[in-house]
């Protein structure tokens, strides 16, 4: 049980310890570059403020994006799939039993034929 062991995945290898060390080094380099920048904005200007095409910036309390608004494009593109998949989840116990019995019948037919 070596402390540093490489996961053998058959065709490749995965070593999290080396990965973590590499990421730490990368983060340190990133921090070094960042620390060379200006730490404060020049006072008296608007350089530090967000800019939204010249419009007024709404208060953050008003800008919460609700969960149902996310991935609208994805669900809209997949409308044909979802139009079929969602109605299948009827919530009726009879349908649940029927699906189970259906798969069972299919499996028995497969077992009998093959």
């Amino acid at each position, binding site marked *: 049980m070596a402390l540093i062991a490489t996961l053998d995945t058959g065709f490749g290898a995965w070593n999290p310890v080396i990965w973590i060390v590499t990421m730490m080094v990368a983060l340190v380099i990133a921090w070094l570059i960042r620390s060379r920048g200006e730490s404060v904005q020049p006072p008296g200007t608007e350089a530090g403020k967000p800019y939204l095409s010249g419009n007024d910036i709404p208060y953050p309390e008003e800008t919460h994006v609700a969960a149902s608004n996310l991935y609208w494009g994805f669900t809209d593109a997949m409308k044909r799939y979802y139009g079929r998949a969602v109605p299948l989840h009827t*919530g009726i116990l009879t349908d649940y039993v029927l699906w189970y019995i259906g798969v069972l019948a299919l499996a028995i037919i497969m077992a009998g034929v093959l």
Partner: protein
Amino acid sequence: MFANLPFITAGILIIIGIVTIVTQHNLIKMVMGLAVVEAGVNLMLVATGYREGGAAPIFTNAPSTEMVMPTAQAMALTNIVIGIATTALLLSFILIIFRKYGSADVRDMRRLKG
């Protein structure tokens, strides 16, 4: 043919039970269907342990040493006990559903879906 009659009856009982479950909409009738399936399975179990002309497997004062298999009967007995627990639990659920939803119809029991 005659020797296989118990097995055929067991199969028919199970099919009757499943048909009851998927065609009836009243929850209590569905539980009844489940009980019929259970009866079919119990018959199947007891039938596997039966032997022509066998006595009950009690050794004290047994008329002959030819006896039916007690293991299958023990299994059927265990299943009956489990079936009672299941039926009681299901019926008590239905009781609460009827009180809260005002209906014991399976098609009305679909507040969880999608």
